[in-house]
């Protein structure tokens, strides 16, 4: 299993650097273009949440992105230094009352584009573990 790591300060401007890092790793694993896009969009949602909501854009706090290539899966962990949140407490953005809102779609997009998303909370912060599997070859 190989792995790559990027640590960024909690500045939203750093998201582009993170996106390029993720794109490169996904391409290296031979995901097709559609899956590469899904991976980049989904994981940058997790990074954006870590920067804005968890670390409150305090650039003394870091966001760590670790990518593991394991057989047919790309496993990405995004770690922040925030207090955590209740993933079950997020409103469904597809409900008519929420559809016109300007925010609240990040977690939904994350869950929609990846194969699995898990959260682990501790006193030190939150780790979001995300998995995208390569399509099975025929």
């Amino acid at each position, binding site marked *: 299993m190989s792995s790559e790591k990027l640590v960024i300060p909690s500045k939203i401007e750093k998201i582009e650097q993170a996106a390029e890092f993720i794109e490169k790793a996904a391409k290296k694993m031979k995901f097709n273009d559609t899956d590469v896009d899904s991976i980049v969009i989904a994981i940058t949602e997790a990074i954006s949440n870590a920067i804005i909501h968890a670390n409150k854009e305090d650039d003394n706090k870091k966001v760590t992105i670790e990518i593991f290539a394991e057989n047919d899966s790309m496993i990405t962990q995004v770690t922040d230094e925030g207090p955590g949140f209740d993933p079950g407490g997020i409103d469904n953005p597809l409900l008519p009352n929420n559809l016109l809102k*300007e925010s609240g779609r990040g977690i939904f997009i994350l869950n929609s584009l990846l194969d699995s998303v898990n959260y682990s909370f501790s006193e030190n912060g939150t780790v979001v573990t995300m998995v995208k599997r390569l399509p099975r070859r025929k």
Partner: protein
Amino acid sequence: MTIKEEIRDNIAILHLKGNMMGGPDTMEVHEKVKSLIGDKVTNVVIDLSKVKWMNSSGLGALMACMSSLKNSDGQLKISGATEKIKNLFMITKLMTIFNTYETVDRAVASYKA
């Protein structure tokens, strides 16, 4: 991200280039739309053909633009969304909310229909 403004027959076209993934430059689109509204230009086309990636922050910026224009009796139309952006509109059901067109010319023409 860069924003290039073009005016055709009192319709503003904002050509975006780069990524819409949060940060000041993403919200700058909304600031631009508010400035257009201030100058009584309330029909706006946002051209996404050169936007590489968009996430929920970008969607939020588009929603903010749409709301501001609606509140000023104007309309937002979106042109040139790539397949990956259309996919994002689909999964978030925003395809049913946004008026989308394949090209800027068609979006502009739709104001005159």
